């Protein structure tokens, strides 16, 4: 069987975490889409949804570990420039939805290649058929907080291959 060479992998990732804003506490949950391109120096992750970010790292595992911190920094920037939970929520949702046709087309082609068995799933990643991506931003009050809302120190297994 022929395989696709030098193509991008279609990956899924999850993000869950609290973000403190100006007078509000929010909780951001999302399932996002990425294209991962292997290069000589490492792997480059390009956002599909959200579409306006990218990450480079020496390995897919390191990129996976960097991803939550990179997104948290974007959300903190949003929190600093919005003055209400509603404005923050709208900004996060707009960021999640914004993409470009070239990237979404490349993502669609890559998913088809994985489904058709033309592109191998990166080693160590699960295949994840039947995926459905989303973004959810909810407001939390102090009495809703629990110790479980603290962000984990180590993030593992953030990525899965869309199939």
């Amino acid at each position: 069987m022929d395989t696709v060479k030098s193509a991008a992998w279609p990956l899924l990732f999850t993000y869950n975490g609290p973000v403190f804003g100006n007078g509000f506490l929010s909780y951001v949950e999302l399932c996002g889409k990425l294209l991962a391109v292997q290069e000589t120096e490492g792997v480059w992750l390009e956002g599909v949804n959200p579409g306006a970010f990218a990450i480079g790292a020496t390995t897919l595992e390191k990129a996976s570990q960097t991803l939550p911190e990179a997104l948290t920094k974007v959300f903190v920037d949003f929190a600093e420039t919005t003055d209400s939970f509603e404005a923050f929520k709208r900004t996060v949702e707009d960021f999640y939805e914004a993409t470009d046709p070239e990237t979404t087309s490349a993502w669609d082609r890559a998913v088809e290649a994985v489904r058709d068995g033309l592109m191998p799933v990166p080693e160590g990643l699960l295949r994840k058929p039947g995926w459905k991506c989303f973004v959810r931003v909810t407001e939390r009050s102090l009495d809703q907080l629990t110790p479980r809302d603290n962000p984990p120190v180590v993030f593992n297994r953030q990525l899965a291959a869309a199939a």
Partner: protein
Amino acid sequence: MSSFGQVPLKDVWAMLEQCAPDHSIQERTHHYCISYGEKSYPAFPKGEHEKQNPPIQKGHVRKMARFFGILECAKAALSI
């Protein structure tokens, strides 16, 4: 062309002047937020702190240019 290669930030700003007229740049705590047309790219890296003209990885520039639909112009203006 490697995404891990670098270009000076000033060259990126010059490219935007040429390829994305009427864009705007807002400096935030962690990133630059670049707006052009009706779209915003809020995750453009600021590069290493305390450098006047820090190097930026080409992958970030390419992704931003593709997002705004100015990739061909950006490639002609920069070696990305």
